[in-house]
């Protein structure tokens, strides 16, 4: 579905992504873990075209979309749930979703999204800034799904959320996976990643250095954690 090959990205003089290779099979959840500043968010922003990659390929069902403008990447079927959620604060919940609905949704209709996220239905008339962090995260996910995407990029969804809300979030992500949504998940929260992902990737200094299933990861966790993840 989504396949990244040798992706390099520079921010001015700094070489952030140094050859990222990554594949997310259809209907699967792949998680990318890593310390702050290793290039996780840059990976997502490069896929989205928000930071144009210097070289490498981003293949969506075989089509190379690397370097496309963000709106064309989105129209090709990549939906983006950004770090910090970036809800439109002065738009209502429904309006936030409608911005993402470029044409009437076939699979993830607004009605279905409100069933999936009952708290959003309750607050449908509220403005984005009035929502709690958890509600904003659900809204950001709904806004992405309404475009009936082929793959969803979820960047740090657990950031700033209470443990209870993170558990709720995990349930939502699993539910999406069960519905056949393909997800690339960027996380710092290892528990969440372990709980939902089919495959874990660890990123260090702009490269993926470790790939394993959650089972294998759990067995090697102590060592891996010490080598790649703890500061």
């Amino acid at each position, binding site marked *: 579905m989504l396949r990244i090959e040798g992706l390099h990205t520079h921010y001015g003089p700094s070489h952030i992504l140094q050859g990222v290779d990554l594949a997310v099979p259809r209907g699967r959840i792949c998680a990318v873990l890593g310390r702050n500043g290793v290039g996780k968010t840059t990976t997502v922003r490069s896929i989205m075209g928000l930071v144009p990659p210097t070289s490498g390929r981003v293949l969506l069902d075989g089509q190379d979309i690397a370097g496309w403008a963000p709106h064309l990447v989105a129209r090709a079927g990549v939906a983006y749930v950004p770090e910090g959620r970036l809800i439109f*604060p002065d738009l209502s919940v429904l309006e936030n979703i409608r911005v993402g609905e470029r044409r009437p949704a076939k699979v993830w209709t607004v009605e279905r999204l409100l069933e999936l996220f009952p708290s959003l239905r309750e607050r449908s008339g509220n403005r984005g800034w009035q929502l709690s962090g958890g509600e904003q995260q659900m809204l950001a996910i709904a806004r992405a799904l309404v475009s009936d995407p082929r793959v969803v990029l979820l960047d740090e969804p657990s950031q700033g959320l209470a443990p209870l809300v993170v558990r709720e979030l995990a349930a939502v992500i699993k539910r999406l996976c069960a519905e056949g949504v393909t997800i690339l998940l960027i996380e710092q929260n290892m528990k969440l990643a372990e709980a939902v992902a089919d495959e874990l990737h660890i990123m260090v200094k702009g490269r993926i250095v470790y790939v394993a299933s959650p089972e294998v990861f759990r067995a090697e966790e102590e060592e891996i954690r010490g080598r790649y993840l703890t500061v």
Partner: protein
Amino acid sequence: MDLLPFLLVQCLNALSQAALLFFLGVGLTLIFGIMRIVNFAHGTFYMLGAFLGYSAARLSGNFWLAMIVGPIIAGGIGAAFEVGLLRPLYRRDDSAFLMVTFGLTLVLGDIIRLLWGVDALQVAVPDAFAGIVFLFDEPFPVYRLFLAGAGVVVAIAIWQFLERTRLGLLIRATSQNAEMVHALGVDVNLVRSGIFGIGCGLAALGGVLAAPLVTASLGMAGNAIIDAFVIVIIGGMGSFLGSLLAAVLVAFVQVFGTYYFPDFALAAMYLLMLLVLVVRPGGLLGKEA
């Protein structure tokens, strides 16, 4: 003269003035909200509207047609300018926009001088709105009544456009976070060109409608841009409702100031701005405190 009828007539007068100020300010504030650009050429588009309206009304003999043609041509020029000259500058710092839009005022001003000459041009009040009516025995120009009405109609139209249409939704979203809108699959550049064209077109509509009162002249742009800035600053940069509120406030201050304190009439508008900035530095309905 009784006080009440006098006040009523002055209020209507102020509302007709507010309509012109609103057409001028609302485009500038919408453009700023979306693009974070101060469009220095905004007053020039107002002036362009007056001259286009003059010619359209003369050629067709129809003022209504001038009200449509003038804004469309000016809006088209504005949108083309955005695509051709502003778009390449989006990654530069803000001073580049000031230079380019200021340059446009000079170029457009000279083009207008070449095409229409240096003399002020009289635009006839359309027949339907010529003459005066008596309100409580006070004479009042029908055209000013029409202006006040036009202001109300256009304000409601813009409000509904922003609230109800897809483009209106995208304009509001883009003013809050352009990058996010882009990443949701919307060609933000089109939204930008659209709002720039609409804003310039609204300024031109103000110019078309002002011409019968003040004639179309080369001095229009300078006064207009200052009024427009004052309205945007008082109302809060980027706020549609703020520009409406500010236009009404400024118009009342101008009209009543001229009557009661003729010597200070010009200063009154700036005193109002000063007062607002002291109390609310971001403007009445502005975001930044």
